[in-house]
């Protein structure tokens, strides 16, 4: 069972985007960082365990010329082997900062050159894979940036061109050793999932076709892909083969966010139907195939959710954001 903790107030309400909450846990100093996109600005704040906000900062999308400032599409902390970067994607490009958002270390402008007049231009989908940071674009490209251990010498190492529709989300897990084991999954608006092995040259291992709805959020855990779709379904696939193993009719509206607590294999799903659900993933002892058990459901009345994250690796607490809501809702288990 979970109980509601004290909410953390936000300067600006959360925008109706998917995956609109990033959480960075810093167990060493007992602080948790939160990042939420408001629209043309994003808010970072750090809070103590009781939820008392200690420091906050606002970031804006670069290149604010024109009548309306560009919108931010996502903000996400990338935990790399030797550093943590804060990455921000917008309608203009990709901004990378030191983890507290104080210094911008890299700016990549999107090349709108080949966007036909009917396409919206933006970057979206952010994940760290080893010492790479992967960022998706409206054209379905995945930009792979090589990140040095320190300093601003970030280099665009590769551009993956498998998707044809805008990237929605990217998931990664630490490399498992062998060459052909998947450690990166990219998802797009058509529901297509591409499974990769990272490296100096990313290798495509397999593809999982969509079925007419966007895959808005994706997670990867111990060779299992968890994908959340626009029709409210969560599907679990075997990453190495792309075979579907579980199909959950989880929500009555589009799923906006998924998160994983890796220590215990717990999956958190949040959707526009105002519900969050927590699921336990496991491998069956007999066949070794993936199984799912429902653990907990929570309703946030009249709130169209847009982001959800566990706040600790054991999944004993989580936070949620909602459209038009100027606070982060928090829950922890009793």
């Amino acid at each position, binding site marked *: 069972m979970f109980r509601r903790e004290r909410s953390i107030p936000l300067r600006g*309400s959360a925008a109706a985007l998917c995956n609109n909450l990033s959480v960075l846990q810093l167990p060493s100093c007992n602080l948790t960082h939160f990042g939420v996109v408001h*629209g043309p600005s994003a808010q970072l704040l750090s809070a103590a365990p009781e939820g008392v906000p200690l420091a906050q900062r606002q970031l804006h999308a670069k290149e604010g010329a024109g009548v309306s400032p560009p*919108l931010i599409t996502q903000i996400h902390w990338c935990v790399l082997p030797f550093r943590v970067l804060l990455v921000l994607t917008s309608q203009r490009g990709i901004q990378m900062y030191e983890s507290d958002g104080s210094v911008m270390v890299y700016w990549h402008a999107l090349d709108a050159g080949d966007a036909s007049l009917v396409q919206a231009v933006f970057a979206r989908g952010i994940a760290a894979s080893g010492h790479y940071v992967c960022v998706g674009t409206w054209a379905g490209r995945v930009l792979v940036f090589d990140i040095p251990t320190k300093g601003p010498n970030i280099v665009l190492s590769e551009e993956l061109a498998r998707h044809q529709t805008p990237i929605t989300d990217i998931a990664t897990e630490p490399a498992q050793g062998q060459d052909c084991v998947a450690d990166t999954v990219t998802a797009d608006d058509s529901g297509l999932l591409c499974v990769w092995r990272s490296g100096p040259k990313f290798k495509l291992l397999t593809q999982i076709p969509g079925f007419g709805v966007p895959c808005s959020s994706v997670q990867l855990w111990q060779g299992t892909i968890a994908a959340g779709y626009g*029709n*409210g379904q969560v599907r679990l696939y075997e990453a190495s083969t792309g075979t*579907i193993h579980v*199909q959950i009719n*989880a929500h009555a509206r589009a799923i906006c966010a998924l998160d994983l607590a890796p220590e215990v294999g717990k999956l958190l799903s949040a959707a526009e139907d105002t519900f969050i*659900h927590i699921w336990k993933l496991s491998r069956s002892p007999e066949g070794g195939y993936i199984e799912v058990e*429902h653990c907990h459901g929570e309703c946030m009345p009249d709130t169209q959710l847009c982001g959800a994250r566990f706040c600790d690796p054991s999944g004993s607490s989580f936070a949620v954001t909602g459209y038009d809501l100027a606070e982060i809702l928090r829950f922890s288990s009793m």
Partner: protein
Amino acid sequence: MSIRTLPLLFLNLGGEMLYILDQRLRAQNIPGDKARKVMNDIISTMFNQKFMEELFKPQELYSKKALRTVYDRLAHASIMRLNQASMDKLYDLMTMAFKYQVLLCPRPKDVLLVTLNHLDAIKGLIQDSPTILHQVDETFRQLTDIYGGLSAGEFQLIRQTLLIFFQDLHIRVSIFLKDKVQNSNGRFVLPVSGPVPWGTEVPGLIRTFNHKGEEVKKTEFKHGGSYVAAPKEGSLELYGDRVLKLGTNMYSANRPVETHMSAASKNLASRTQESIVPNPLAKEELNLLARLIGGMEMQKPSGPEPGFRLNLFTTDEEEEQAALTRPEELSYEVINIQATQDQLANDELARIMGEFEITDQSRRNASKGDDWLAMMDEL
């Protein structure tokens, strides 16, 4: 973000505006012939071919200021006048109604059905004018041509773009409060029961498969809501059962249009501050306004058809009171066309003016020497 959003925003807000004006014209007992003229004039201007062409071009959403100015002009396309307070209230009602409809759409694509509901009703408001009816049918065709084939992902982006546009608007509307679709804090009620969207399964089932793709287990879980399957898909044909009720006319002569002006939004500082620079209009926005004004009949209040003032409030005193007590943070900024004089040097506008000379028959007695600003003053 999506560059296909503007037509949907414009047509739905326009539809709501017509519902409200229609209700007020009847409530205020405006004579039938005058009311009919006003409705026909506004609808005809809204669906003007050149204007629609401009509107349907792929582009970013207009600024809130520019959009509000478009509706100001539209509302004054005929012999009817509205005071600032009434225009503000009209716009509040329009925006909250469409925000509600977008939020409650089961699927992102359902916003298209909402738009068709508005178009269906608009056709019902047109009286004795096959020409105007034809204009609306043309727009219907354009809509289904462009939006009929868009993917679920593109509709999701459109929905997000609309919701970002309406972010932080929490004006309380009497009719919504009474119907319990809005809470007293201005937030809309999101029901957790009823039919699921078309293409979604009722939540509660977990199906497990083996590596051969055979289903090996089926379990249920308690979802928390009480949903039922979707009955059928709404029709996108010219005539058809839309199934969805969102976007149909919720006003009738007996249901007054009221809003509560106490600012329900606590985080007012959080509203995105739009820049108040002297020339806030982008070239595209000016184009749209120019085409809108170009398509309008120039009406003088003292002309053959005497004008009248419509009041969105029950009495004149109420209207005055509303104007005085409107919270600062809720005031709309309307673009002062006078202030954009230097934009006339813009080649684009000169070209548009030239175009109107040749092709637009409805402009009366305009010669190349006419001062464009003087024409604006007449409006």
